[in-house]
């Protein structure tokens, strides 16, 4: 299945805000309230940080927020901290195959 499209990398300084985009196709992001975002520190288990486009699991900082416009979902991290440096993946249900697909991942560097 085709992956959702994310930028390969983003970078910013501590305290700043960044937004990571996730571009889908007709029949996924634009159709279902099913976008999720994962934070992955290498060597650790990936962590769910956003579900159902903008839902935040218990224990996830309010600095993480999700949104969607048309076929593009976005993850915004405000007040960047050093520990936010990680890989971030979006995912969405797609009716093309009746399952979910991941984005290619974005490496966030906190300068």
């Amino acid at each position, binding site marked *: *299945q085709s992956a959702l499209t994310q930028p390969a990398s983003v970078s910013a300084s501590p305290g700043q805000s960044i937004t990571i985009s996730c571009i889908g196709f007709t029949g996924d992001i634009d159709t279902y309230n*099913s976008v*999720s975002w994962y934070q992955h520190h290498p060597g650790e288990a*990936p962590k769910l940080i956003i579900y159902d486009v903008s839902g935040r*699991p218990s224990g996830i900082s309010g600095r993480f927020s999700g949104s969607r416009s048309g076929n593009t979902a976005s993850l915004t991290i405000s007040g960047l901290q050093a520990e936010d440096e990680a890989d971030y993946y979006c995912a969405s249900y797609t009716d093309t195959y009746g399952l979910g*697909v*991941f984005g290619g991942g974005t490496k966030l560097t906190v300068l």
Partner: protein
Amino acid sequence: EVQLVQSGAEVKKPEESLKISCKGFGYGFFGYYIGWVRQLPGKGLEYMGMIYPDTSHTVYSPSFQGQVTLSADKSINTAYLQLSGLKASDTAMYYCARFGGAAFKNWYFDLWGRGTLVTVSS
């Protein structure tokens, strides 16, 4: 503690088979789908499929249908990923994860294992 614990790293030769385990702790394991996700070296996450331990109902990604076998033993809260006829290109990290959505169209995984590294080399 609610967690998924995966079996340890494996080194296999081409054509061999492998079965990775994923054991759930701290929640009703049988009542949640368990998904499997592959990460090739330096690449992103790929959804492979998932299984419902209570009934062993399985859903495979078309990309992995016929290539892998999912199974589960709800009596010991454990799901399995079996890979057969291993190739060097199967070298990857394999993650199990708990499906958290109320339905497939609320597609997300809310609990992940730390991964099992599989290396296939002659």
